C-alpha cells in the first residue's frame, strides 16, 4: 500500500494523539522496535500547531529526517469537541415530505434516569426553518412509490444558498434500500449551490431508524468544514517538515483511514482518541499473551472503559456522543466523569460525593500548587502515600501539606473522620464509580469481568488498577510500559479499516437469499474498491462479512459473523445457529423456536500493516537495585514504610511484592498489599493477587 511501500521496513512511523492538555507523540522504528516518546502542550485553538510542534520534537529526539517516515497516524478530538460543544457548521437538511420534525421529536423520550419535570430537551443542531421537505417516496423494499420532486430540491438549494448555509444533509426515508433519490438530490444541490458540502445518509449510514440516521448525517456535514480544514492544515504541517508519508486518522471503529476519507465522513472520527487507546490496549495484551482484557484509561476528568474479547475491541452501533446518537460502528467505550482531578465534596446532608466536577488541568489538584482548593482524587492518593512526593523525574514537587489540609477541611472534619480515612473514602467512592463503568462494558454485554485481565492506562490508571481488579475479582492486571501514552502507541499499531453497512431487512419466514447475496456482493465490491483506493496490496487485504440478526419482533439486533463467504441455505442456518449461541451467552437464553430475522449486513475491510516488533528489555539484575526511596504508605491494614521502584531500572523477570510504588515519567503504579508484580520481556508489569 502507498502507506507501506516496499522499503517501509526501513522507515519509521509516527503517532500523534492530541488530548485536552497534552499532545503525545510516539515514533517507532518497526524494524528494531525502538520507540521514542515526546509530549508537548496541546494548542486547542488550532490543534495542528501542537501536532506540528510534536513532530518537530520527535524528529529531533530520534535524529530522523522527514524522508525516513513511512506514515503519520493521528488521533483527534476536533470532531468530538465540535459535537459536544455544539459548534459545528450551520447546516440545512432535506428530508422526505411529512418528516420535517423527525429530529425535533427524536425518540420522544426523557432519559431513563432523567426527571419528567426538570429535564429540558436539548436544542437540536438544525432548527425546523432550515429543514426542507421534498416530495418523493421510496418503500421499505426499495421500490419507488413516488417520483422525486426535483423542482423542490432546486428551490430548497436556492433558499439554503440565500440563507448563507453551505452544509447540507440529505436524509430520505428508506434510503438504505434505494439511494437513488438521495444521490439525485445531492447532484441537484451541487448544481444549484456548488459551494455547499453535501452529505447523504445512504453514504454515511445506510441503516434503518430515521432519527439516528438523520442525526449521524447531520453531525457529519456539520463537522465537515472544520474537520476538512483541519486535515488540510495537518497535511501542510507534515509537508513543511519534509515528510512525504501519508497522514492516516483514527476512526471511532478502531482503524485508521486516509485523510481523504475523513474529509468525506468526518463524523467517523467522533471517538478517535479513545479508539486509539483501545487499539493500544489490544496490542499490549497480544504481546503479553492476553486476549481478553478490559482497558481503563483514567485521565484528569474522565475515565474511558473498553472491553477486548478474543483480541478484538468490542464494537457498538448504538453509541452516543453528547446528547446525540451515532449509529456508526464504534469501539464500545463507556465514559464516566471520574478521574484524578475529580473533586470530593460533602453535601449539606452529609453525603460524600466525588466528581463529576473536576479541577481539570487548571487549577488541577491542590497538590499541583496551581490554585486548586478543593481536594481531588489525586490529593487523596498523595495523602495516603500512593504517589511519590515528586513527579516527572523529580522536576515537580507535590504539595503534601496542601493536599492534607484540603482533605481535612472539606471532607475529614465535616464527616468527623481522620484525614487518612477521608482520603480512603474518596478513593473507595471513585473506585466504585469506575467499577460501575467496567460492569457496563462487561456484565451488561454478557461477559464476566473475572475472565478478563485489567489493563489500566492513562496518567492515573495504574494508581487505581489494583483496587479495581480486587473489587471485580479480576486476577491479573497488566500495566503497559508507557501507560501515559498508550493511545499514541495504539495509533502506531493500527490497521486501515472501513465498514460498509446496509439495512436489508428480511422477514423471518421469507428470507431472500438472492437479495442477501446481492447486497453482500455489492458491499464486498465497495470494500474492494476502497482497498484499491488505499493501495492495499493483495496479501494485506481482509474483508469480513457480518449480519445483524434478531428474533422476530425483538427490537435489538446482534452482529453475527456470516458463517461463510457465500450465501447459501447452509450459511444462513449456520449464522442463525451462531446467533442463538451468542444470544444465550449474552442474555442467558436462546429461543430456538422463535423465527429469526436478518436486518443489516456489513462488510468490514482491513488493510493490515506488518505488525511492528516491540523492543524487548534486558533481563534485570537485582530488583532491589531499582528501589530509589522508601515512603510512608497509609494502607487499610496500617501504615508501612514502602519501597519506591524506578520502573526504568527494572529488567525483565523482576518481582515486586506489594505494598510498593513503581514510578516512571508518565504514571505511577500502586502495588497493593497482597499483590505481586512481575515484569515480562516487553517491560509490561503483570500484577496479580498473592495466592
Amino acid at each position, binding site marked *: 500500500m502507498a502507506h507501506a511501500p516496499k522499503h517501509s521496513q526501513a522507515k519509521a512511523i509516527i503517532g500523534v494523539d492530541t488530548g485536552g492538555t497534552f499532545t503525545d507523540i510516539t515514533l517507532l522504528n518497526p524494524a528494531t522496535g525502538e520507540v521514542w516518546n515526546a509530549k508537548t502542550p496541546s494548542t486547542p485553538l488550532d490543534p495542528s500547531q501542537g501536532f506540528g510542534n510534536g513532530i518537530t520534537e520527535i524528529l529531533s529526539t530520534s535524529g530522523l529526517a522527514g524522508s525516513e517516515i513511512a506514515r503519520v497516524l493521528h488521533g483527534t478530538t476536533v470532531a468530538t469537541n465540535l459535537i459536544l460543544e455544539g459548534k459545528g457548521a450551520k447546516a440545512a437538511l432535506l428530508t422526505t415530505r411529512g418528516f420535517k420534525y423527525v429530529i425535533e421529536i427524536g425518540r*420522544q423520550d426523557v432519559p431513563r434516569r432523567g426527571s419528567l*419535570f*426538570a*429535564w429540558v*430537551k436539548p436544542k437540536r443542531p438544525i432548527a425546523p426553518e432550515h429543514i426542507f421537505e421534498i416530495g418523493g417516496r421510496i418503500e421499505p423494499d426499495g421500490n419507488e412509490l413516488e417520483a422525486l420532486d426535483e423542482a423542490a430540491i432546486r428551490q430548497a438549494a436556492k433558499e439554503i444558498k440565500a440563507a448563507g448555509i453551505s452544509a447540507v444533509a440529505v436524509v430520505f426515508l428508506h434510503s438504505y434500500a434505494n439511494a437513488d433519490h438521495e444521490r439525485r438530490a445531492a447532484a441537484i444541490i451541487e448544481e444549484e449551490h456548488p459551494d455547499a458540502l453535501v452529505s447523504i445518509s445512504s453514504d454515511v449510514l445506510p441503516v434503518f431508524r430515521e432519527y439516528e440516521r438523520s442525526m449521524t448525517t447531520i453531525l457529519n456535514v456539520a463537522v465537515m468544514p472544520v474537520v476538512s480544514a483541519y486535515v488540510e492544515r495537518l497535511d501542510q504541517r507534515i509537508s513543511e517538515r519534509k515528510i512525504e508519508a501519508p497522514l492516516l486518522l483514527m476512526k471511532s471503529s478502531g482503524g485508521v483511514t486516509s485523510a481523504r476519507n475523513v474529509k468525506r465522513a468526518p463524523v467517523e472520527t467522533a471517538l478517535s482518541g479513545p479508539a486509539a487507546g483501545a487499539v493500544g490496549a489490544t496490542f499490549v495484551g497480544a504481546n503479553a499473551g492476553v486476549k481478553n482484557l478490559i482497558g481503563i484509561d483514567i485521565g484528569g476528568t474522565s475515565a474511558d472503559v473498553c472491553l477486548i474479547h478474543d483480541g478484538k475491541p468490542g464494537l457498538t452501533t448504538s453509541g452516543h456522543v453528547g446528547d446525540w446518537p451515532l449509529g456508526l460502528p464504534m469501539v464500545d467505550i463507556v465514559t464516566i466523569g471520574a478521574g484524578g482531578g475529580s473533586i470530593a465534596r460533602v453535601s449539606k446532608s452529609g453525603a460524600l460525593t466525588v466528581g463529576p466536577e473536576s479541577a481539570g488541568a487548571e487549577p488541577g489538584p491542590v497538590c499541583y500548587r496551581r490554585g486548586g482548593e478543593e481536594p481531588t482524587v489525586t490529593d487523596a492518593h498523595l495523602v495516603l502515600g500512593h504517589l511519590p512526593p515528586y513527579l516527572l523525574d523529580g522536576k515537580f514537587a507535590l504539595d503534601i501539606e496542601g493536599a492534607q489540609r484540603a482533605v481535612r477541611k472539606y471532607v475529614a472534619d465535616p464527616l468527623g473522620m481522620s484525614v487518612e480515612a477521608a482520603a480512603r473514602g474518596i478513593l473507595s467512592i471513585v473506585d*466504585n464509580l469506575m467499577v460501575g463503568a467496567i460492569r457496563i462494558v462487561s456484565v451488561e454485554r454478557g461477559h464476566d469481568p473475572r475472565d478478563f485481565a485489567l489493563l489500566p492506562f492513562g496518567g492515573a490508571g495504574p494508581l487505581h488498577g489494583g483496587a479495581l481488579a480486587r473489587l471485580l475479582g479480576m486476577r491479573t492486571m497488566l500495566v503497559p510500559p508507557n501507560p501515559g501514552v498508550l493511545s499514541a502507541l495504539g495509533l502506531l499499531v493500527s490497521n486501515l479499516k472501513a465498514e460498509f453497512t446496509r439495512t436489508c431487512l428480511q422477514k423471518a419466514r421469507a428470507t431472500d437469499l438472492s437479495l442477501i447475496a446481492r447486497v453482500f456482493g455489492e458491499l464486498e465490491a465497495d470494500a474492494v474498491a476502497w482497498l484499491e483506493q488505499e493501495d492495499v496490496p493483495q496479501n494485506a487485504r481482509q474483508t469480513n462479512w457480518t449480519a445483524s440478526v434478531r428474533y422476530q419482533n*425483538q427490537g435489538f439486533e446482534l452482529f453475527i459473523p456470516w458463517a461463510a463467504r457465500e450465501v447459501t441455505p447452509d450459511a444462513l442456518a449456520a449464522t442463525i445457529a451462531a446467533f442463538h449461541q451468542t444470544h444465550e451467552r449474552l442474555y442467558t437464553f436462546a429461543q430456538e423456536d*422463535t423465527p429469526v430475522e436478518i436486518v443489516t449486513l456489513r462488510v468490514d475491510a482491513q488493510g493490515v500493516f506488518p505488525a511492528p516488533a516491540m523492543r524487548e528489555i534486558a533481563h534485570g539484575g537485582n530488583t532491589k537495585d531499582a528501589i530509589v526511596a522508601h515512603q510512608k504508605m497509609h494502607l487499610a491494614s496500617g501504615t508501612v514504610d514502602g519501597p519506591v521502584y524506578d520502573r526504568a531500572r527494572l529488567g525483565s523477570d523482576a518481582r515486586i511484592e506489594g505494598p510498593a510504588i513503581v514510578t516512571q515519567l508518565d504514571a505511577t503504579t500502586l502495588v497493593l498489599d497482597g499483590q505481586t508484580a512481575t515484569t515480562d520481556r516487553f517491560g509490561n508489569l503483570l500484577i496479580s493477587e498473592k495466592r
Partner: protein
Amino acid sequence: MQKLQSDDVADAADPVTLQIVRGALSAVQSEMEAVIERTAMSPFIREKKDFYAALFDGTGRLISGSNLPLFGDVIAPIAEHYPLETMRPGDIYWFNDCYASRGAVSHTPDQVFVAPVFADGQLSAFAQSWAHFNDVGGMRAGSLSPDCTEIYQEGIIVPPVRVAREGVVVEELLRLFYRNSRFPEMVKGDTRASIAAIRLGERRLEELFQRFGRAATLAAFNALISDTEQQLRAKLRALLPEGEHRFTDRVDSDGHGNGPIKLRYKLNVTPDAISLDATESDDQVRGPVNFLMAPEVPAMVFASYLLGENTNTLNSGAHQALDKIVLRPGSVLQPNFPAPLGMRGVTMMRNMAACLGLLNVATGGKAMAAHSAYVIWYMRGRDENDELFLLSDGLGVGYGARTTADGNDAVYLVAQENFPSEFLETVFPVRVRRYAINPDTGGPGRWRGGCGLIREVEVLAKEAMISMRIDSVENPPWGVAGGHAAGTGRCVINPGRPDERVLRPLSDGNMVKRGDIVRIETGGGGGWGHPFDREADAVLRDVRGGFVSRESAEANYGVVLTPDGRSVDTAATEKRRAKRPATKLFHRHGYHEVLD
C-alpha cells in the same frame, strides 16, 4: 409486615459506604433494565421501553425504583399469600392483580416479578421487574380497550403466585398464562426477560450484602430512605404555607358518556402534618379510566417534581414525607372491584397535573403548568399473510411550561420511545405520511407550553380496527401565572376527503380499510407567565419553526411580524403589547382564580 430486629441493622451508615451503596443500587437497577430491554420480545418493551426494575429492602420499602409516579407497595400483597418467613432463596413471586395489590399494579398488562434476596440466611431485600406485556388476553388484542366495563375484559388476572420455588420454575403456571395471550411467543420472551432480570438483581444484591455485611448494608438502605424523606419534607415545608390548599382537575370522559370526571384534592398543611385528602373526587365510572391509585403515588409526584434531576433519591422516603393520604373507596381514584382500569393512564396523568395544581395554589403560581395525557392508539387486523397484527403506538404530547423553561415538546413519558417510521413500515401494514409537531398546541406564556405532535398513517391492511385514547380535549391542560391553556388533540380519519370523520377521543371498534388515512393530533402543555412577557425573538423563532402560528403570535403573544414573516415588527408589537390583558392564576377556557 414483619419488622427487622433492631440488632440486625447497624446504627448508622458511614458516608463512604452510603455513597457506594447508593451508586451500586442504581447500577444494579441499570443492569437489570439492560437485560429486560435487550431480551424482551413485545414491542411495548422492546421499542417503546415500557419497563422498570426496582429494589426493595427486606421489609418491602422501595430503595431504588422508577421515577414514574405510578407504583405502590409491591411486596405487601405477596406477603399476604406467602408470609415473608416462608420465602426461600430462589423463589420468584408474580402478579398483575390490580385489586389484590391495591394499586401496586394499576392495569392488568403490567407484570410484576419479584425475587427475595437473602443475606446471612435472612431475608434482606427484594429485586423486582415490572413490564407492560402486549397482550394478556381479554376482550380485544392488546388487552386494553376503551370499551371495557369490567376488569375481567382486560386480560387474565394473576393474583400473587409463587412462580418459582428454590430455583425451580412452575412451568404449568406459565403455560396457563401463555395460553391466554394472542401473542404467546412474545409473552414467553417477555417473561423470560423479566425472570432473567430479577435473577441478576438477586445476585448483585447478594454481592452487596457480602461486601459490606448485612447490618451495614441495611443501615445504608435506612439512611438513603430517611435522607430522601428529610429532603422532601424540607422542600415541602419551604414551599407550602400553612392552611388548606384546594385544587380540582378533570378527566374528560370515560368513553361511555360520563364526564367530566373530577379529581378534587385538598392539601392540608399544619405545623404537625402535611396531609392530602382526595375523598371529594368523583365516583368511579363505567368506562376504564378508573385509577386504582396506590396511596404512595401523590407523594411520588411531589418528590419527582421537587427533587429535580436527583432521580436516584426517589425511594420510599418520599412516601413517608406526606403524613397522610385519604382516598375514598368507590371514587375514581379508589374504584371498587371489578371496575375496569385499562385506560387509567389518563387519570394518572391528571393526578400528576392536580398535584402540580396544588403547588400552584399554595405558592400563587410558582410551579409548573399542566400537561396533556400521553396518547395511545391501537390498530388491530390481519396482514397480507392473514396473520394477526397489533400495532400499539404511543404518541408524545406537550408538557407544561416551567417557571424557568419552556415545556418539552413531543415527549411521551420517561424513557419510553416512539416507533421509528421506518420500523413501523417494515413491521406493520401501514405507510407513515407525516410525523410532525402540532402547531399552537403549546399554551402561550412567558414560557411556552410544549407542543404535541401529529402522526398520519395510511392503512395498507384490507381492514383494521382502531382503538383511540386521547384525553384533555374538552378540558385542556391549564396554564398558570398568566400562561394560557394548551391546544388539544383529536383523531380524524380521511381529513379533507368527503368521507372525513372524527373519532371519539376515547373509543374502540373504529373500523378502517385499505387506503384510509388516520391522522392523530396530540395536545400540548399549558404556558407559564404572561405571554406578553415572552421575548419577541423567541416568539419569532417559534413561528419560523412552526411551533406557533403567526395568528397566535399576534393574538396571544402580542407579537406582530413583518409581512415576510422573517422578523418582528417592533413598533407594531410595542403598540399591541401596550394593551396588556389582565390575568388570573389559572387559564382554561379563559382565566380563572380557581379551577373546578
